[in-house]
Every structure is written in structure tokens, then in C-alpha cells.
């Protein structure tokens, strides 16, 4: 028999705040991608404002998780859920940071004459967006199969970033006068690649929470 416990209400509140934080992150990502080419300052300002909300949500999550641990001494699935939530919030806060870095670099593109984004950077954007969406779905829907697929797809982000890197390196050799733009492309690509890493972390967390197994570092044991 399952008894409705008071702590379930607090766990549900925690889940609600975490989902809200994830929605903020995804909105930031979408806005930052949509703003490429337009470089609208109001949109950037909105993204930076949302990032403050993301930080606030991380603090709320930490405080509520701390309270739940202090008052209810959660075990088993509840404990995994709490650990996963705290770790996931760290990833989300860093995702928001990376999106801000991506935006700051893309803002500088306004000043350059030559600012057409390379196709690979668009490919990277699309791939990362898909990974992040799936990462959030895996966590909130407890979808281990989807989480597994994210772990397999992480290499494709690394491969795209490698392609971008090689292209930038070649362009730098060919057109040293464009080096400022190319460095911004590199920084933007690096941020996207890191967001992909965080999406992978979310997938690993989803598996840990659901199955209690640690799949980080390709199944390394200790």
C-alpha cells in the first residue's frame, strides 16, 4: 500500500521549480538562435534577464532540496531524485551561462562586415537544440531509452565541433583579416559543444535517477 506522504508535496514543488528552470534554459537557447542575423539588443537583454531567473531557480532548488534532506532523510528513489535534481540544476545553470557567452560573442558579430555564419555552426545549433530538448524530456519523463540515445548522439556534437574547428583554422590561414570574426565563431561553437556536454550530463542523471546506475565516463568503475 502506498501512503501519501507530506514530503511528496515538497518533492512535487521541487520538480515544478526544476521544470520551470529547464523551460527558461530552453527559451534562452531558442531566442539566442532566432536572434542570429537580427542581433536585436532587446532580445539579448531578455535572454540576460532570463539567466538571472535561472540563477534564482538554482538557489531555490538548492534550498528546497536542503530542506527536504534535513527534514525527511529521503532514501532510495527519493534520494536519487534529490541528488539528480541538485546536479541537474548545476548543469542547467551552466547551460544558461554558455548561452549568455554564445550571445555575447554573437553580439560582436554586428560590428563586422563579414559575419555570415558557417553552415556547420547552424548544424551544431540544431543538433544541440535537439539534444537539450531530449535531455530535458528524458529527465522529466524518466525516459531511460531516450537518455541512452543521447549518450550515443553526444559524439555527433563533438564531430560537428571538430569540423567547425578545422574550417575556422583553415579560414584563419586563408583570411587573417577575418580573425576576429572567426574567433567569435570558435567561441560560439565551443559554447554549443559545452551545452551538448551538459545535455549528455542530463541524460546520465536521468539514468541514475531511474535505474540507480552510474553511466558516466563510459561505464568506468572505481
Amino acid at each position: 500500500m502506498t501512503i501519501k506522504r507530506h514530503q511528496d508535496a515538497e518533492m512535487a514543488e521541487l520538480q515544478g521549480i526544476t521544470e520551470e528552470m529547464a523551460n527558461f534554459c530552453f527559451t534562452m537557447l531558442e531566442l539566442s538562435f532566432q536572434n542570429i542575423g537580427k542581433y536585436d539588443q532587446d532580445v539579448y537583454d531578455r535572454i540576460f534577464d532570463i539567466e538571472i531567473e535561472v540563477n534564482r531557480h538554482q538557489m531555490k532548488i538548492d534550498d528546497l532540496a536542503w530542506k527536504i534532506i534535513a527534514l525527511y532523510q529521503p532514501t532510495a528513489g527519493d534520494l536519487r531524485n534529490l541528488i539528480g535534481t541538485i546536479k541537474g540544476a548545476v548543469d542547467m545553470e551552466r547551460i544558461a551561462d554558455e548561452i549568455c557567452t554564445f550571445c555575447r560573442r554573437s553580439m560582436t558579430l554586428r560590428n563586422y562586415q563579414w559575419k555570415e555564419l558557417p553552415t556547420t555552426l547552424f548544424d551544431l545549433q540544431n543538433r544541440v537544440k535537439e539534444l537539450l530538448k531530449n535531455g530535458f524530456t528524458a529527465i522529466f519523463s524518466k525516459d531511460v531509452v531516450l537518455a541512452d540515445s543521447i549518450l550515443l548522439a553526444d559524439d555527433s556534437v563533438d564531430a560537428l565541433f571538430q569540423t567547425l574547428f578545422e574550417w575556422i583554422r583553415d579560414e584563419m590561414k586563408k583570411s587573417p583579416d577575418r580573425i576576429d570574426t572567426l574567433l567569435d565563431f570558435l567561441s560560439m561553437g565551443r559554447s554549443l559543444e559545452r551545452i551538448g556536454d551538459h545535455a549528455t550530463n542530463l541524460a546520465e542523471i536521468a539514468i541514475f535517477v531511474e535505474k540507480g546506475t552510474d553511466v558516466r565516463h563510459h561505464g568506468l568503475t572505481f
Partner: protein
Amino acid sequence: MSAFLIEARNLNFYYGTFEALRSINISVSQNSVTALIGPSGCGKSTLLRIMNRMCDLIPGSRVVGSLRVFGREIYDPNYDVTELRRNVGMVFQHPNPFPSTVFENIAFGIRIAGENGKENILRSVEESLSAVDLWSDLKDRLNFPGQNLSMDFQQRLCIARAIAIKPQILLMDEPCSSLDPIATQKIEELIFELKKKYTIVIVTHSMHQAARVSDFTGYLLKGDLIEFDRTESLFKRPKDTRTEEYISGKYG
């Protein structure tokens, strides 16, 4: 009148020459759950019991200081103890139903309180059993002996008996100590429901239980109230190192 239903100020209690409680200052808010924790012999049960004047008959016992309930000094010689106990119910460590039926366990107190109407008594029995989530299980067994129920049901029956006379305060002295974890969880959830209507003070050996169910917690040690604070604050950031040691299991 004070915002607090129970207020102790510089309260001392003696068993003969032994000082069981020393300069206790505590305020209990309405519709809150206040937990008293501490190692054996710290005085937590004594503090609970003197809130209901249950130590009056202990030879040599003595209260010094102020203990106000509903704004009135309950150790005033003119204070009506019967009235106090009508408003301050008590639930004990071991379930102690009367050797009678489920119905009579509840109805007895209602009659003593002056209600004789059969329908009113039946309604009160139903309300009290419903409040402790026993009505659906026991409505067809009202003539069943109360002492033959499971321990969990017996304890809930005792809580129903306590609230049948509509007290404002419920004192609970380790109400889950003889129950298994599932039954304990049920009582804890019941405490959460009851605090909507009643003000509860609970003594518990389990600091985890105090953390789970209470709004305020007091930590007693050797007769002193070391710390009294909101439960969340006390379990997250205790101010006194002695509290920290106790709640993190480093005491003794």
C-alpha cells in the same frame, strides 16, 4: 490575549529536590506542531505533562515560574483543572483504549463533557473517527472491543477519543513509539491533518520524526531548553553546538 496558546516563562519543575526543568521559556503558536526532542531524562515528557497538570499528584513535585495556557496561569490555585483537560487533550506512548467497545471509547468522554443526546453523540463519534481516518474501517464494527484492534488502530482510536471533546490543544507523548514504520507514517500524516484544527505538542525520541512533522522544535538537555526554533532552521542551521551534536547523532 497573547498570540500563543501556551507560554512558559522562567519555568522550573522539581521532583523533590531534583530540578527536572530549569528556566524554560517556550511559546506555542496556534495550529502549529511543536516537537520536543532530547535524550532520555532531559525533561521533555515532564514539560509536556505539566502543560496538562499531569504531575500534580506526584509527591514532592513543584512548579516554579509561569505557565500560561490560553493566556491564563494554569498553576494558579483557583484554576479549574477539569476545564484545562477538556481543552488540552493527551495521547500517550502506548495506545490505551478503555476495555470497552470502539463506540464507548469515544462516547464516554462526550457524555462526561455533558452531551447526552443520542444523535449528537453518534455524530460526534463519527466525526472523531473520520478525523483520524478510521470511520470507513470501523463504522460497521462500533461494538468491537477497542483493545482488540491493531496497535495502529488503537492509537488512532485514542487520538479520536482525545479530540471527541473538541480540545484546542493536543499533547502527544511519543505517540508512535510502539508502532511499526507504516503505522508511524500514518500517524505522522494524521498529525499534519490534525494541525489544521488543533495545536499540537509532541514529544518524540525520534529527531527524524520531529523534523518530518513539526513546525517548531525544542531541544532539551538535562532539564535545560537548549534551543527552540522553527524546525527547518533548527535542522538546517542549529545555533547551539549541543543541538548540532544531538541531531547529527554525535551525542553520548
